[in-house]
């Protein structure tokens, strides 16, 4: 309502209009965790969204200061618990940079395979739960069925299904299982047609498109200014992937494309684009795994693990392309066996900060569609 009309109403009959405040959460099935959104509404229209976070705050960074470098690894698992492999990967890369060591090539290849499998698993959860948020229950079951296969692969590798403690500084905790290569190849053949199935089931579904296309549009400039990264940034039409643009590990040896949002169903950077970029990325991850799995060199994966990690005084900011975006570790060393300061720049934390910008002017029901499309994990938001 415009200010003039409002003033007129107040002047004529003494009635005052004000926004209604609605609390969404902390317990709400579609917030994917404990998150409270304070909404200011004018009827059904959203005027302001204020996210309140911290319900899962464990102060990982304080814990890290009291532990030695290798002991931090299991804690990184528990931040983004849907992409644990990649959190460890990022931490290991950062500490290795601080120490100035190079890991054996076999380790790098296995890390990439695990990382990309994790990316598919994480995207499957994102896509499945997104469908469920919108009201399509069946795709969720299909996605989880396929994710289960990836978790089985992780289970034969390191015994855990969710929190792995697998990628260590300088190496890996175990070598891969003798059957791992065969099973992974089988998984690729099995999974590839399922992406098409998911497209038929959900991506091109009329109801799904109506709910997501032209909703929550994030222009490219705004996205960069807000520090958005990963699939959400690419959906806004910006070709930016740290695996190519600031490469790490052995990603420069593989041939893969970076899909970006093209606004096929609506506008570039809307919810549907953010969803669809993830579908396309799974295909690319399969390509990377296919190339890497055949080239894994022989060697010992635990040989390079330092007995005692005591980096020289210094600091490093190192980042990797997590399934959700840019996961950065800022690690300061004062020369002792414990890190002096660890700061995690988590993509979910950053992406939640843009909620107000994304939701303004849309309807209350669209909040569910927007929040699901940016794909946050509250364990990482609150750390």
């Amino acid at each position: 309502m415009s200010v003039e009309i409002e003033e007129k109403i107040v002047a004529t009959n003494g009635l005052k209009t004000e926004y209604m405040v609605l609390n969404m959460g902390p317990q709400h099935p579609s917030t994917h965790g404990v998150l409270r959104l304070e909404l200011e509404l004018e009827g059904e229209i959203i005027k302001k969204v204020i996210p309140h976070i911290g319900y899962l705050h464990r102060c990982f960074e304080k814990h890290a200061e009291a532990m030695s470098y290798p002991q931090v690894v299991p804690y990184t698992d528990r931040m983004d618990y849907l992409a644990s492999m990649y959190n460890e990967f990022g931490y290991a890369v950062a500490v290795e940079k601080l120490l100035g060591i190079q890991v054996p090539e076999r380790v790098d290849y296995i890390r990439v395979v695990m990382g990309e499998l994790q990316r598919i698993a994480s995207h499957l959860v994102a896509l499945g739960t997104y469908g469920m948020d919108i009201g399509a229950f069946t795709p969720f079951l299909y996605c989880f069925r396929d994710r289960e296969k990836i978790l089985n692969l992780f289970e034969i590798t390191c015994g855990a299904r969710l929190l792995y403690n697998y990628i260590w500084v300088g190496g890996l905790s175990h070598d891969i299982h003798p059957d791992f290569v065969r099973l992974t190849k089988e998984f690729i053949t099995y999974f590839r047609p399922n992406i098409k199935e998911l497209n038929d089931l959900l991506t091109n579904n009329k109801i799904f498109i109506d709910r997501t296309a032209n909703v929550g549009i994030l222009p490219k400039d705004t996205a960069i200014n807000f520090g958005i990264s990963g699939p959400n940034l690419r959906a806004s039409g910006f070709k930016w992937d740290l695996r190519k643009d600031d490469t790490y590990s052995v990603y420069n040896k593989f041939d893969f494309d970076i899909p970006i949002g093209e606004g096929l169903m609506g506008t570039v950077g809307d919810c549907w684009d953010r969803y669809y970029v993830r579908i396309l990325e799974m295909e690319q991850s399969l390509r990377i795994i296919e190339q890497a799995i055949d080239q894994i060199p022989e060697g010992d994966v635990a040989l390079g693990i330092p007995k005692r990690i005591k980096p020289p005084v210094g600091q490093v900011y190192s980042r990797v392309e997590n399934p959700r975006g840019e996961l950065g570790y800022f690690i300061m060393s004062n020369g002792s066996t414990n890190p002096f300061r660890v700061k995690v720049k988590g993509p979910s934390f950053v992406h939640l900060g843009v909620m107000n910008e994304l939701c303004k002017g849309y309807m209350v029901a669209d909040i569910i569609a927007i929040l699901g499309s940016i794909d946050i994990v509250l364990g990482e938001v609150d750390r």
Partner: protein
Amino acid sequence: MKTAQDIFSILKEKFEDSVQELVSVLPVEHFITINPLAIDKVCLFLRDNDELLFDNLMNLSGVDDANGRTVNTEDGASKIEGATLSVYYHLESTSFRHKVALKVSAPIDNPDVASVALIWRHADWHEREAYDLIGINFLNHPDLRRILMPYDWEFGHPLRKDYKDPEYYQGMKVPY
């Protein structure tokens, strides 16, 4: 693509005293130390200058330097002097692909740092986090509240090195 040395020279010429020095630390990361009250002007210049275009703030982290030394006062008690809190900014240009790190340090008794939240909106939540966990006071921040700790937390800033848990919070025993 510009090196840290080039960027330092450009900044030094433009801002003189506000830009202090170029420090190299392991493993080959350079950072430029800046006056905490001038950081917003320097950042605005870095973002908008045609040769630099640092459009992406990668990370902003507050640090308790724990660098004070204990001094005995005349009445026998001891106090800590010279301790500082720091903020590190890691910037990147998505068009030129160069990076730079900045550092500001403010005394722990009066930790005022100019906010960059209106230059990169990304900094908004990171500054709130640095305020919440370290206790750095960002001047001209649009909405400086606690973010991760409860809003009614009155027992200090947990990432300070001298932080002690309170015994009770809202009637609940804290140390377990």
